[in-house]
């Protein structure tokens, strides 16, 4: 599945459903679908809120039991993997609300990759599914 969304305002749910109903994802088991939905939402939300991009290109591939979900946008360069992880042992009083999204993706996917190429953020989530 490959699709470009432009403009992107108000299309959060549509973007997620496009991934979830794609041939590559629709037949996966419930547990995997839960994780994929969650991680796609977290990445998409980061892009929509912070990058300032006018479009997002999404590509989902499945090859030899490996699922790859690739996001591309032309927003400001931002490497989400460079951020420190949240302190998950912090007490209730000190617990911060931010930074959870990418941390969840790190835990639930097998590998995350980020590059900045030709003025675009390229972010890929990789998950073994077989």
């Amino acid at each position, binding site marked *: 599945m490959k699709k470009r969304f432009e403009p992107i305002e108000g299309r*959060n*749910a549509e973007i997620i459903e496009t991934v979830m109903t794609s041939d590559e994802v629709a037949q996966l088991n*419930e*547990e995997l679908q*839960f*994780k994929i*939905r*969650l991680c796609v*939402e*977290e990445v998409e*939300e980061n892009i929509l809120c912070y990058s300032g991009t006018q479009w997002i290109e999404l590509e989902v591939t499945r090859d030899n039991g490996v699922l790859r979900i690739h996001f591309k946008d032309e927003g400001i360069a931002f490497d989400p993997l460079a951020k420190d992880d*949240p302190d*998950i*042992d*912090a*007490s*209730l*009083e000190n*617990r911060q*609300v931010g930074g*959870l*999204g990418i*941390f*969840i993706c790190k*835990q*639930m996917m097998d590998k995350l990759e980020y590059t900045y190429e030709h003025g675009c953020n390229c972010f890929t989530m990789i998950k073994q599914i077989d």
Partner: protein
Amino acid sequence: MEVIISQENGQMVARLIGRLDTTNATQFQNDITPLMEAEHPNIVLDCTDMEYTSSQGLRMFLMLQKTVSSKAGSMVMTHMRPAIREVFDITGFSKIIQIE
């Protein structure tokens, strides 16, 4: 996400139904406001029918727990599905929010 609030034996019980995500987190925040109005809130969040939460939802639960604790109240989440429990576990939320 639908929230149905009832009073049971001096506790506020909120049934959470459906998915909690970025599209409805603000509405959810409004829906749970009545839970925080008591002097010492005593809250049960029944998660039997909660299908999903993103980090936006976690923020809401953290905010709710902070408010309840600041008012010397109590809050417990019950009947959480394993997939959601895993999200609470990996983010450390199950150490600061009571889950039964």
